[in-house]
């Protein structure tokens, strides 16, 4: 019966599946920082390939890696979806994505049709099988939570976004003639930033905020309909991009308004949390939601009127701060928990407690680095000379996380090698 309905309550996938993606994401963050350090303000000029490269380092490199790691971990818990052979599946998607991303970045710098084609092929091989499998399993679920529904929509938007990316590459390569390249570019960005990344974070917050911090629940109907509404609006955006590009700013303005609402609702929930803790993860969430609210206000302003380049940069900084803050918040919960959880489940008496895996002070110091980076980035919006410094700080920020993840992994293996273990009787 459980097989038939696609349900399983199996345990989480091996810890290596999650950590390999988180570590790869952190390394991409370091690479993005080095790029910004080397290129300076050029990496933020929307008409320069350097900006395209930076954006894709942060999205395909950082965000996609963390998303896949988190989904492998969360789908069994949230939706009873345990993917078969998770280690194989993870490896078979991670390497094509890695090489596909590198080739795409090279193709942006030195456009060549075969390079674009090869990059897209590899990205397709890396992303499509795992995303389609997750989406297919999510589609068959009968008892959806707002989180699982939202993750499904977010994955759907990711697939659409990849297809539009391929379409644009086709136009650049001269194979496809239909479509307005600028409108498609806006759609690609809108779907990626709002429909994929923001919706993914919204979906995660539906579950994580209430449960980890013991807060009042999100309004039921809001949580139920928000992901569908957002995706519906973005689908309209898709139609508009092909037929009526002038309508796009209005539609995206509405999407931004709903995300602004989500940020306020989340901040309110955190304000009313019952748990006393004010650890780094709570502050990362608060910071992320404030950044999202401000970014969405600017996005709405931008859909009504032309923004100056400075405001555009502030918007980019705030949006990035939003996504990275939540990503850091999740990492500092998930990594120590999984280290303890797997060792404990394997029967090791010496399984380290969460605070021994990553001490709260380590996370707090990262918060300070992150805040300082955000501050300098906001000032840099007015003073181009500061961008290399922002890049250097980004390197420090992601190195901090990478070291924490590496040490957790190292500790895990150390306990497995040396720890005393309860014998489950051959199991």
């Amino acid at each position, binding site marked *: *019966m459980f097989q038939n309905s696609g349900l399983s309550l199996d345990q989480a996938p091996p810890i290596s599946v999650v950590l390999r993606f988180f570590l790869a994401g952190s390394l991409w963050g370091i690479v993005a920082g080095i790029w910004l350090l080397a290129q300076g303000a050029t990496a933020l000029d929307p008409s320069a390939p350097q900006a395209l490269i930076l954006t894709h380092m942060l999205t395909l490199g950082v965000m996609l890696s963390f998303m896949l790691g988190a989904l492998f971990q969360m789908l069994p818990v949230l939706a009873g979806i345990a993917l078969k052979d998770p280690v194989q599946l993870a490896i078979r998607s991670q390497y094509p994505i890695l090489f596909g991303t590198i080739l795409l970045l090279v193709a942006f710098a030195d456009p060549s049709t075969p390079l674009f084609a090869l990059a897209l092929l590899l990205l397709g091989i890396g992303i499509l099988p795992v995303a389609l499998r997750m989406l297919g399993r999510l589609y068959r679920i009968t008892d959806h939570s707002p989180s699982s529904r939202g993750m499904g929509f977010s994955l759907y938007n990711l697939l659409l976004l990849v297809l539009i990316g391929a379409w644009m590459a086709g136009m650049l390569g001269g194979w496809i003639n239909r479509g307005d390249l600028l409108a498609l570019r806006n759609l690609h960005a809108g779907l990626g930033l709002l429909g994929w990344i923001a919706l993914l974070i919204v979906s995660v917050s539906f579950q994580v905020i209430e449960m980890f911090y013991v807060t009042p629940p999100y309004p039921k109907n809001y949580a139920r309909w928000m992901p569908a509404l957002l995706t519906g609006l973005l689908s309209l955006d898709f139609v508009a991009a092909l037929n009526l590009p002038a309508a796009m700013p209005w539609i995206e303005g509405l999407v931004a308004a709903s995300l602004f609402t989500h940020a306020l609702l989340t901040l309110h929930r955190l304000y009313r949390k*019952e748990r006393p803790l004010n650890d780094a993860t709570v502050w990362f969430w608060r910071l992320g939601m404030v950044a999202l609210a401000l970014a969405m206000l600017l996005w709405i302003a931008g859909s009504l009127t032309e923004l100056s380049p400075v405001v555009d940069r502030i918007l980019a900084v705030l949006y990035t701060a939003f996504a990275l803050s939540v990503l850091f918040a999740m990492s500092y919960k998930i990594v*120590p928990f999984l280290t303890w959880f797997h060792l404990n489940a394997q029967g090791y008496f010496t399984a380290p*407690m969460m605070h021994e895996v990553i001490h709260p002070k380590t996370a707090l110091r990262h918060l300070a680095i992150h805040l300082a980076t955000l501050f300098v980035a906001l000032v840099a919006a007015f003073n181009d000379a500061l961008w290399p410094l922002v890049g250097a700080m980004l390197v420090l920020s992601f190195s901090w996380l990478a070291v924490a993840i590496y040490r957790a992994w190292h500790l895990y293996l150390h306990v497995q090698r040396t720890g005393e273990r309860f014998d489950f009787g051959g199991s």
Partner: protein
Amino acid sequence: MQISNYLTHEHRSCDSIFAEAEKAAAAGEWEKAEKSFLDFANETLKHFKKEEEELFPAFEAKTGSTEGPTQVMRFEHEQVRGLIGKMAEAVEKKDRDAYLSLAESMMILLQQHNMKEEQMLYAMCDRVLPPDEKSDLVEKMEKVEL
């Protein structure tokens, strides 16, 4: 939704008591922390007993599955029991750092477990069990004592 509503409500009330205990421990008010922690432990263990002695057998009888989800849930109950023991030691020793660190593991472990139950197991129970049986079951669970 009878089963879901009844047991999900218990999860939330355990969460609140847990938060109270944690608040007291963080503030170094150990007497209060001990009392709230005991409440939390008792309520949680009673909730587990209701599931293990009433809900799971009813579900297993209906679906013919004793090795599937209920087995995993029983295993996770054991993990929680283990952590309750360690937290009790920390309360006794008034060890704030150990308590807060264990509390963090406990919270995520419990929430992970609760999510699986709420999203899947309870929903399945509500679907496969006939209404009369569900009312009986809730009545029986009400009577469970530690």
